[in-house]
């Protein structure tokens, strides 16, 4: 996750240099005081707007009330201090809780923008008679509000990406198992689409598996993989060659018609590839290569 460096009040004030120092120092506290004063009313208005927009429908009204309260308080606090660290932390925490419930990015961004809008409207209302004052207030409010919206969105997306990465890692670990079935015989079942990333990983795991298990024969079963593109097919052929360099012969089983077509079309040298129709045949061939003879015990029942 990319850590954002906390934004200092200095940086924040750099966003509205047009104001003179005195004004600026008074404006924000004034603004914050105003928002604190009308907290209940504004928060209710905000909740209503959220409901009208049909956002956060995955949450119960009670949860909504609790979350909107803390978001509101956090929001005002950031306006006051200019320090987004606490908000960042809260947003990440919130994301962690609501992402598993299917809350979408647009909803989260949506509610923050709604709050921004609600608060801005209340400012319009308060300063409607003094236009230049309103201008100054908005100058102070807008950059800070934008910063908040930005922070929340980024935190949410960060959290989501972290989850996706975590899941990708899990899938990756599961996706290329190298199974020793007999002494010196490995099976590599490939299920699902082989993309180049997975193919690369497969090679890595296979070659280190050959080394670890001192394999002489490897059966790669691609029954579960309906299609490969040319790059991956090429990669597969290279993997077979590399395995041979490490002293293991590779048997490929379960080539689909489509993959067979791809392999022939790209014109790689297939004479060295040992391919057999199905996994069963491949295992039998592997056992033959290793000198195993498998016989069924006399009198045992076959189901």
């Amino acid at each position, binding site marked *: 996750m990319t850590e954002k460096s906390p934004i200092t009040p200095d940086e924040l004030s750099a966003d509205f240099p047009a104001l003179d120092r005195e004004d600026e120092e008074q404006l924000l506290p004034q603004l914050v005081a105003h928002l604190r004063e009308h907290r209940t009313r504004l928060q209710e208005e905000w909740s209503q707007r959220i409901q009208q927009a049909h956002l956060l429908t995955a949450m119960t009204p009670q949860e909504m009330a609790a979350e909107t309260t803390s978001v509101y308080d956090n929001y005002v606090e950031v306006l006051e201090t200019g320090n987004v660290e606490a908000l960042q932390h809260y947003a990440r925490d919130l994301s962690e809780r609501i992402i598993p419930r299917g809350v979408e990015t647009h909803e989260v961004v949506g509610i923050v923008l709604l709050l921004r809008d609600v608060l801005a409207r209340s400012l319009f209302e308060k300063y409607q008679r003094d236009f230049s004052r309103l201008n100054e207030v908005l100058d102070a409010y807008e950059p800070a509000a934008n910063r908040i919206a930005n922070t929340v969105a980024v935190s949410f997306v960060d959290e989501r990406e972290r989850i996706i990465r975590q899941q990708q890692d899990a899938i990756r670990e599961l996706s290329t198992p190298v199974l020793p079935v007999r002494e010196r015989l490995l099976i590599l079942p490939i299920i699902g689409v082989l993309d180049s990333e997975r193919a690369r990983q497969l*090679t*890595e795991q296979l*070659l*280190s598996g*050959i*080394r670890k298990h*001192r*394999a*002489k024969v490897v059966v790669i079963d691609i029954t579960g993989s309906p299609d490969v593109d040319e790059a991956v097919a090429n990669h597969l052929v*290279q*993997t077979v*060659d*590399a*395995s*041979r*360099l*490490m*002293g*293991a012969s590779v048997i490929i089983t379960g080539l689909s018609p489509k993959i067979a077509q791809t392999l022939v079309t790209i014109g790689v040298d297939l004479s060295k590839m040992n391919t057999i129709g199905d996994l069963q045949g491949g295992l039998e061939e592997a056992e033959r290569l290793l000198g195993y003879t498998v016989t069924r015990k006399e009198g045992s029942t076959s189901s």
Partner: protein
Amino acid sequence: MRQGSTLIASVHTALDDSELVRFEHDLIHQIGEHRSRGVIIDVAALDVIDSFAALTLRRIAEMARLRGALTVLVGIQPEVAFTMVRLGMGTGQVPTALDLEEGLALLAAHPVAGTDSTERDARPGSTP
């Protein structure tokens, strides 16, 4: 280098081009001296095998064959194996095996190199 009727050469450090040439030269001469029937070249210590090294290894194997010995290349690291294949430098006709033990088994099984026993003395290997 260890020997018996099988000559075992293990490469301990990365060799530059001139060292490779010397290695080739030494090895070919020793095949004649020891009347070796099999040669095992162990490259387990190499992290990189470039095109010249691969070519040299192929040349050694070919020359050894002409002098009556079968060459087996053993101990190619996984990453090295894949890099070699990616760069299109196979080992040609040279047989390969996982490690020394496998290489010896492969030679023993071979009709030419395996005719007599592969006795070896236990002198520690040294860089050629």
